[in-house]
């Protein structure tokens, strides 16, 4: 039977882009269905209202929402629609996905991350599993992503440095903020190894993209120069140029239809003006970001998949991962510094690009000997002025503050300090209390059941987050920061999500095989972060890009 396309990819973010580019370059016909609009550099401005105060790059919650299930004191789990709570779990529904809005802190996983169970043993209440592939199998694709996405950085030897097949990054580090010399000095005095954080940001023009312009507004903003290595700027624009790849924006896939053999027959979606359409392909790739990928497969029942596509062993949507850890800030008061230092700290534009991985693996009695730790990343406090001032609207007694008092508070917060922030990334242990299911009572505007997300966490995550936060606080103290605050919690960051369709060798405990093909479907692959059985202790994007390049090679061999 003839198919409309060789490959149909649902979702155009970091999981979809590599497959699209590789297959299009190989002369295969590729169709991408993207739910959101196709925005480009010409649509991205440093406008806080657009990036962060209105749903411009994400759906209106009245139209599309999630239901978040939290555990109450009595032990019960209760769901609340995000339309009611305002807790938005969308991350960029546009061509290129949320990679348009990332900060681009790029880290590889380390070899031991691929065998967390074997290396560190089990933890009660956690579903830790080794990966079915090793670091060595993914390494060539991490390297490939460096050149294809455009990753800038500098390799530095340290005790937990992962092996590399190339000596250096293809691009030198981006320009650094003057505060880094203070961070480096403090770390040096403490005996900590401060490292330069690789970024998915071009430090010089290349591949038809401009270099970073250092506006000082990066994370949460779309990039207007193309320097940020979004799936769109780095991959899809090139895929389109081959003439073999077509992107249909504003196309919402509602179901993947499967045949009597259990294989994908067609993809059903609503296109422009909400007209229902159907398309077929030899291979279908799903990359809608973890939550929506699980939701789509759960909704895609068929004759051989009565509980959802690939869910004959009730694994679909299970072991969802966020990123555990915490964050904190310290302030540097200009009036306490000499003028030169104060002026340097006021600089807006260059990046901080510093991280600590001394405790990526911990060997400390306080943590019961050897344990998995994580990463500490340093960055400036986000420059968004409205959100900064909004936090001053209420006093410590929760009463509203207004009048001259409010003006004093705002003036002081803006003009008298620079804030240095740290973020801790440690493993979000997979548990039975963190998963995606369908909420049949709450529907989106197309009438489909929305994703219900249970967001339970493992207590161990907080222990590691606290341990690492204390190390970060030492750095801030050594730098003589004022007003040091931090917070470690089990509240999930909605923008760091993976899992739900873990890959493995056993169909009873995983959704995907080691090639990221759904075990009992011949022509369905998943290439977003859903495949990860454990997440490592870094942001996921580089690993998602690398794995998608790996799967692209596998798909290339069969179509």
């Amino acid at each position, binding site marked *: 039977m003839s198919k409309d396309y060789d490959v149909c990819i649902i979702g155009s973010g970091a999981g979809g882009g590599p497959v699209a580019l590789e297959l299009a370059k190989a002369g295969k016909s590729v169709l991408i269905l993207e739910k*959101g*609009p196709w*925005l480009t550099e010409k*649509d991205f*401005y*440093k*406008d*806080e*209202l*657009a990036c962060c*105060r*209105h*749903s*411009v*790059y994400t*759906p*209106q919650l*009245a*139209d599309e929402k999630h239901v978040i299930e939290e555990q109450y004191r009595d032990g019960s789990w209760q769901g609340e629609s995000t339309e009611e709570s305002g807790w938005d779990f969308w991350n960029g529904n*546009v061509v290129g996905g949320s990679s348009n809005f990332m900060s681009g802190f790029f880290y590889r996983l380390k070899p031991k991350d691929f065998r967390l169970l074997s290396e560190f043993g089990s933890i009660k209440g956690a579903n830790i599993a080794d990966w079915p592939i090793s670091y060595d199998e993914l390494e060539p694709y991490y390297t490939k992503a460096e050149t294809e996405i455009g990753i800038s950085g500098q390799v530095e030897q340290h005790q937990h440095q992962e092996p590399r097949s190339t000596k250096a990054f293809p691009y030198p580090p981006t320009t650094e903020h003057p505060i880094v010399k203070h961070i480096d000095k403090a770390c040096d005095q403490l005996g900590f190894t401060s490292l330069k954080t690789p970024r998915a940001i071009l430090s010089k023009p290349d591949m038809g993209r401009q270099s970073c*312009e250092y*506006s*000082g*507004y990066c994370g949460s*903003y779309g990039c*207007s120069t193309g320097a940020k290595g979004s799936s769109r700027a780095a991959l899809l624009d090139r895929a389109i140029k081959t003439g073999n790849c077509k992107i249909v924006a*504003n196309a919402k896939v509602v179901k993947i239809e499967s045949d009597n053999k259990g294989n994908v027959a067609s993809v059903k979606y*609503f296109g422009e003006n*909400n007209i229902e359409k159907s398309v077929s392909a030899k291979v279908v790739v799903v990359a809608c970001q973890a939550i929506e990928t699980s939701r789509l497969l759960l909704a895609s029942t068929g004759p051989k998949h009565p509980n959802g596509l690939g869910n004959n062993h009730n694994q679909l949507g299970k072991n969802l991962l966020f990123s555990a850890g915490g964050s904190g800030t310290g302030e540097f008061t200009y009036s306490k510094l000499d003028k030169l230092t104060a002026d340097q700290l*006021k600089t*807006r534009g260059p990046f901080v690009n510093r991280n600590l991985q001394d405790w990526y693996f911990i060997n400390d009695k306080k943590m019961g000997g050897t344990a998995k730790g994580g990463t500490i990343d340093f960055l400036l406090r986000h*420059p968004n*002025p*409205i959100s900064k*001032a*909004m936090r001053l*609207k209420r006093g410590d007694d929760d*009463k*509203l503050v*207004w*009048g*001259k008092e*409010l*003006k004093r508070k*705002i*003036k002081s917060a*803006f*003009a008298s300090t620079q804030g240095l922030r740290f973020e801790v990334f440690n493993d979000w242990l997979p548990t039975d209390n963190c998963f995606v299911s369908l909420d049949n009572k709450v529907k989106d*505007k*197309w*009438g489909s059941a929305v994703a219900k997300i249970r967001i339970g966490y493992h207590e161990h995550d907080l222990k590691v987050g606290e341990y690492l936060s204390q190390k970060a606080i030492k750095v801030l103290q050594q730098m003589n920061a004022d007003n040091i605050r931090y917070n470690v919690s089990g509240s999930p960051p909605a923008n760091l999500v993976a899992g739900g369709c873990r890959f493995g060798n056993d169909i009873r405990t995983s959704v995907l095989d080691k090639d990221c093909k759904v075990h009992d479907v011949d022509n369905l692959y998943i290439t977003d972060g859903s495949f990860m059985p454990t997440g490592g202790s870094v942001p996921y994007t580089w690993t998602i890009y690398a794995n998608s390049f790996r799967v692209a090679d596998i798909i290339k061999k069969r179509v």
Partner: protein
Amino acid sequence: MVQSTLLNRRKFMQLLALAAAAYPLSGLAGSRQQALASDSVSKEEPWLTISAVQEHLFPAEKNSPGASDINALIYLQNMMVTPDFDNEKGELIHNGVAWLNDLAKQQHSKTFIQLDSTTKEKTLRRVENSNAGSRWLSTLLTYLIEALLSDPVYQGNPNGIGWNWLQHQPGFPLPTENKKYFKIGKNRYRHTKA
């Protein structure tokens, strides 16, 4: 463009209906249209009261801008006719004015704008004691802060007066008239059922 104009128009009519219900005798419809057309601050209710509340919440001082300097009222009016503006919020903004003036009349036999500064403060703090009153004031504060710090293209923060006061360095490029947030990817604002 056509769609966005239509949506603006629809929202605008809804707002008028709401406002008219709260102020049947104010002749608001005409003045509202005029305010939008000319960008001049309306001298009619409820805007007169809202403007006085804004000035109280964010007063002008010798070396720092106040509500009128940052075009707080025009900014609020602009936001209230954007395509994604929440009707319930519009209702709250209008109702709050009625609560406030009822309270002022009840206690001082005056409208809010006729009160002295100390009495204004006391009256607003009393309004804050109810949940709805607190939400109303919080909403007005939010739009004040936005008028102070959002891009001048939205007509608050004229010539970056708020940014300058706070020595805030904005990013670049900055949005242009045709790239206001509600003009980007505007199919987002189809609230139609499939």
